[in-house]
């Protein structure tokens, strides 16, 4: 952990004006609470924060305006008259083709896709990572290296072979097929995370469990899993966002009645009826991003911890 030392490193850097003479400064501490350093530090942070918040602000503000107001111009000005009409429309009324039920249908489809995909891809990747970290066998590292290199392959390249494979297995177009696709493309990074995490756990723990008579699955389920909350949170966040936000697979590997929310979003945003309804688009955009955003806000702290444990080592 960075500590007081670090803090003062900076403190000293900027605050070179502290009294220097042999004269005993016996009074109060000579360091003001609002120092030049703090102004710099927080100033920079706040400016950076503004840059990051700006688009969100624009999205929210726009989604609350009426179209006439948007046409007037300034995207940064707060709404003169707040209307929730765009939200209602985005959620329940916007049309794609003949379907005019907005995002609501896609939402539940997304849930139906995301939940099993996240669970299964994490389950597979965590077991892989565990096997790689604790039960190496001949060739395991080779497969792992292939997997990591696979992380660099653009998805588009893989679509065709996968379509063929799924067709041959006969699960093309089913939810199972989509879950498998998500598991496959989540595997490289997740396996890397889990492997690094399990490697960082003390090996002696694993040995102790073996001496205690626990086998491959028992050690995994009863010893490793309960200790892996942070990395599971990281995996969960990455997968929830990845899968929830996925457009390509969702559209290629499902059918219209199971299209995820992003496809719906694309339809709404790209089905322009005359003028683009920016307010509805923004509302739809926010609604679509809401689930991963909430996941982040709730578990952000664990995310950093997990990242520290899983990504940095190894």
């Amino acid at each position, binding site marked *: 952990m960075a500590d007081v030392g670090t803090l003062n490193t900076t403190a000293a850097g900027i605050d070179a004006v502290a009294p220097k003479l042999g004269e005993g400064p016996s009074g109060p501490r000579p360091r003001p609470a609002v120092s030049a350093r703090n102004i710099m530090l927080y100033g920079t942070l706040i400016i950076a924060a503004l840059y990051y918040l700006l688009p969100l602000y624009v999205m929210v503000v726009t989604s609350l305006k009426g179209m006439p107001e948007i046409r007037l111009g300034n995207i940064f000005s707060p709404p003169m008259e707040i209307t929730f009409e765009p939200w209602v429309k985005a959620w329940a009324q916007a049309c794609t083709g*003949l*379907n005019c039920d907005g995002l609501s249908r896609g939402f539940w489809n997304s849930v139906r896709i995301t939940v099993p995909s996240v669970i299964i891809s994490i389950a597979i990747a965590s077991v892989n990572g565990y096997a790689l970290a604790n039960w190496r066998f001949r060739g395991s590292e080779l497969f792992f290296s292939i997997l990591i290199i696979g992380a660099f392959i653009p998805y588009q390249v893989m679509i065709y072979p996968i379509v063929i494979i799924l067709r041959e297995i006969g699960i093309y177009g089913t939810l199972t097929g989509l879950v498998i696709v998500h598991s496959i493309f989540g595997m490289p990074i997740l396996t890397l995370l889990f492997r690094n995490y399990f490697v960082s756990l003390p090996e002696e723990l694993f040995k102790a469990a073996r001496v205690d008579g626990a086998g491959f699955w028992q050690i995994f389920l009863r010893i490793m899993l309960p200790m892996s909350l942070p990395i599971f949170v990281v995996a969960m966040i990455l997968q929830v966002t990845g899968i929830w936000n996925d457009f390509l697979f969702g559209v290629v590997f499902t059918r*219209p009645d199971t299209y995820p929310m992003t496809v719906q979003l*694309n339809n709404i945003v*790209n*089905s322009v*009826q*005359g003028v683009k309804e920016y307010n509805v688009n923004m509302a739809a955009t926010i609604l679509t991003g809401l689930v991963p955003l909430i996941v982040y806000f709730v578990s952000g702290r664990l995310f950093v911890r997990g990242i520290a444990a899983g990504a940095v080592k190894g």
Partner: protein
Amino acid sequence: TDLEVTHWWTSGGEAAAVAELAKAFDATGNHWVDGAIAGSGGTARPIMISRITGGDPMGATQFNHGRQAEELVQAGLMRDLTDVATAEKWKDIIRPSSLLDSCTIDGKIYCAPVNIHSWQWLWLSNAAFKKAGVEVPKNWDEFVAAAPALEKAGIIPLAVGGQPWQATGAFDVLMVAVAGKDTFNKVFKDKDAEVAAGPEIAKVFKAADDARRMAKGSNVQDWNQATNLVITGKAGGQIMGDWAQGEFALAGQRAGTDYTCLPGLGVNEIISTGGDAFYFPLLKDEEKSKAQGVLAKTLLDPKTQVAFNLKKGSLPVRGDVDLAAANDCMKKGLEILQKGNVIQGTDQLLSADSQKQKEDLFSEFFANPSMTPEDAQKRFAGIIASAD
């Protein structure tokens, strides 16, 4: 029976038109399951093809009229509609007959054309010209001449959206208008690279160069946003297919008073006969196959044709329907059609691959003022030389 139909008709006018198809189909006791995918054919087509090749085909799907589904047919993935076509005598009613030819492979018919779209239209905003204080032009040359006045009034002379097919389409239109039907056919039908490199086409590139200059400042992507610039008078005109009419209609504008349409850019009154067609993947389910037949039949039903094409702003594929309700522009189109001043659409003449290469070229040309017309023409000739 439920039949899933995929298409990329999602803009306002399009969606209204699809609704007519669905209504007609539902009236036969079946059910139209709508599978719209927004974002133009470029986004939707791969998805449709993946599903057909992936073994999870839909009941029917839209493709552009032309060669897009050729290989699917050859791979035996599509349903043979010859039975329906013979029963319904499509050969007799569909006009121009080239439409049905495009559906025919090895003597069998694989698709049901639903409409004719022509590209060769210049849409002008009357309000914009009024504001600029010039007459509404009657042909391309006048339009080019009026451009400075429009610019001075803060109006973009020509609206061109950022999507690559718009620039390509505009060029094809200019070719017909400037160089004429024969040259067009020599280049695209016969793939004559010499002509493509020749002086006739150089003139076309000159015109395209004008268009490029006039299009500066239209910061929009989608074609209908560009149309909207014309509708709102922010732009003087747009070269766009007849589907743009749907947008004008939706905005409550009337041809003649609010906007003006110039087929063949007012120079050469020739229109192309591209369009949309429905293809029917081969299904195992007997019931559904039967429903596919019903749908095919419904699509070409005169009543459906009228209802659909009125909303869509396109021309019906059969010559025997009454389009009394059609507006001025549509009537102009029908007239030209009647006269037989037609050419085939580039989608029908060129493979998707060549089309894509053309798109790459023209979207670059339109966006990059430093690319000279001569350079562009050289590349164009190259594409034609290797086209299939």
